[in-house]
């Protein structure tokens, strides 16, 4: 099975995010027969984004399970498989459909190790595409990270670049604990990049300074990292130097990288697509207010989705929900000038 790629060097290949997910899953299936993929339409259809296309032919229906439409049991059965020595990778077709499995993720997977005093563990991955900008309307656009990031026992990653997708998905698969792996669906085909060949992992819990700068720290993740980078480019001409941190992991969160950046730039802007109130930005802001308050030269600001239930299907209602690169640039400019 060949991974589609536009450019290939000896040590790396250019691929987009969806190809990176696919290639990584493929390698996991090849290298360890305890790996099982289960979810809706992952078999003959090869997942609705074709991530597992042809897997069922190569690995068989026992390892690529087209489940009934029943998310609680998709996750719950994966928990049981994991307890019994397999390494399941459960897919929730769209993040919006993860709600019925909340009990199995929060009440069970995240607490298995703890409640059994370490006797049972739950090494599993739950992958799901999230996020907007794709005309997905109320139930194919949501961000779900803030509904889960409060949960001890769980890890959450949300990579933005193909190389991180591979490294973090490998880390998630290797992880002895349950990992919620979030894939921003708008980045699937949009974002391309070099991906090293061979097996490698990126430690869960490490953020990445994707652009160094001196006047403002911007923390983001997912699609908005790319839009934030776009915004910083337009500011460069104005002589404004912005540091952009791609969080990559949401739980555990990389305090050290955020704090050392803020100590340098003395200003912090948090940008995320998810609603503001109680979102990931709340914890980042609180953490900085707790540990680096006197390093701040301006109030921390959060540029986030508005506190409405969802983006609408109609284009104006989707666009109004999303923050554009131009709006991001405005916020950066304002903060630097503060």
């Amino acid at each position, binding site marked *: 099975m060949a991974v589609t790629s536009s450019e290939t060097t000896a040590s790396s290949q250019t691929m987009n995010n969806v190809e990176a997910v696919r290639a990584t899953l493929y390698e996991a299936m090849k290298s360890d027969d305890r790996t099982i993929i289960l979810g809706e339409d992952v078999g003959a259809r090869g997942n609705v984004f074709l991530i597992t296309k042809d897997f069922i032919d190569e690995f068989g229906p026992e390892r690529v399970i087209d489940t009934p439409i029943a998310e609680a049991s998709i996750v719950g059965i994966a928990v049981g498989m994991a307890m019994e020595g397999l390494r399941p990778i459960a897919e929730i077709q769209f993040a919006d459909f993860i709600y*019925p499995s909340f009990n199995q993720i929060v009440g069970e997977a995240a607490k298995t190790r703890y409640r059994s005093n370490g006797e049972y563990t739950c090494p599993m991955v739950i992958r799901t595409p999230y996020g907007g900008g794709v005309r997905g309307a109320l139930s194919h656009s949501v961000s779900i990270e803030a509904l889960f990031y409060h949960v001890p026992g769980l890890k959450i990653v949300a990579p933005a670049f193909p190389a991180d997708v591979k490294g973090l998905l490998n880390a998630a698969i290797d992880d002895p604990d349950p990992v919620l792996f979030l894939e921003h669906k708008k980045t699937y085909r949009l974002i391309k990049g070099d991906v090293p060949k061979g097996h490698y992992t990126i430690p869960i819990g490490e953020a990445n300074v994707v652009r160094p700068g001196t006047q403002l720290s911007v923390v983001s993740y997912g699609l908005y990292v790319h839009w934030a980078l776009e915004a910083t480019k337009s500011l460069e001409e104005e002589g404004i130097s912005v540091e952009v941190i791609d969080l990559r992991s949401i739980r555990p969160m990389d305090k050290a990288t955020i704090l050392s950046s803020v100590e340098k730039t003395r200003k912090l802007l948090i940008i995320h697509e998810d609603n*503001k109130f109680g979102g990931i930005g709340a914890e980042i802001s609180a953490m900085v207010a707790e540990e680096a308050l006197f390093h701040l030269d301006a109030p921390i600001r959060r540029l986030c989705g508005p*506190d409405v239930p969802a983006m609408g299907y109609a*284009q104006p209602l989707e666009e109004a929900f999303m923050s554009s690169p131009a709006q991001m640039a405005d916020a950066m400019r304002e903060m630097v000038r503060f």
Partner: protein
Amino acid sequence: MAVKTSAALDKRGLNDEQLRQIFRNMLLQRQLDNRGFQLNRQGKVPFALGSEGHEALQAGAAMAFERGKDILAPYYRDLGLCLGVGLTPYEIMLSLFARAADHNGGRQFPNHYSSKAAGILSFSSILAAHIPHAVGAAYAIKYRQETGRAVLCTCGEGTTSEGEWHESLNFAAVHKLPIVFLVENNLWAISTPVEKQMAQPEVWRRAAGYGIPGKRFEGFDPIETYATVKEALDRARSGGGPTLLEGMCYRFLAHSTDDNDMTYRTKDEVAEHRKSDPVPRFEARLVEAGVLSDADVAAMRKDVLHETNDATDRAEAMPFAPAEELYTHVYEGAWQPWQ
């Protein structure tokens, strides 16, 4: 799925006008479906989803619905049911174009029809989540002792795997609620065939486990559908409790414009089912029985096309909701949480 084709049409209590209405609904469904896919290919709408193959089932079931009394808790494939209980093609097109005048203000995906006026409950894209709502509505009807009213709640066969489906049927059975659970079994849940969804493929057989009547019927036959759904709704309306019905049909189109069904099923399979296409079959039966002449059919087709064109043009000309509408209807009243 053999459909009876006898000249002597057993009308099961339907009069000729009703038979014509059913047939017109079927034609309209197909025309609107075609239009949706066409508009998608033209780049005018990002998404469309058709119910081809479900026309007879939905037109027949809708005829058993009492407007102004019953409540419909549909799912996204229920174009014909929603037309049959009173939605207009214009309303359908407003949904497809996501215009401000749509019942949902263009917020939801197309095909997520709802209308308080028509008695259609609002539902989300989350499969099975509407089924407990239907049960709650049936509870309200029973609690207020509104006999003569019932809830018709539909879903695809794939959706019966969800836990909420089970919980809902069980509760409705315990309380003998006025509700009919109508499963539209089209043999596929996107790419997942019935065999991967359940070990024994007859959903209606689960009824006994809940202590309620269950029945499978030929959903390609609108008259049998009507009679079966009416019997169940009548039982519900008169205090006889819930029924689980399973109408057999087939999904002729891909799941939606985002799907390519040739990745998981064959042209031959689809062609085989097309042989029993309920639309030409029913046309033939009505013509044979003298309910419609060929000229009537031609006129009806023209009329349906005209109505579809008109609805398309009028809806397309309507405005989107302005960006400010993103902030309304979060809560009632003054609190504006985004401030």
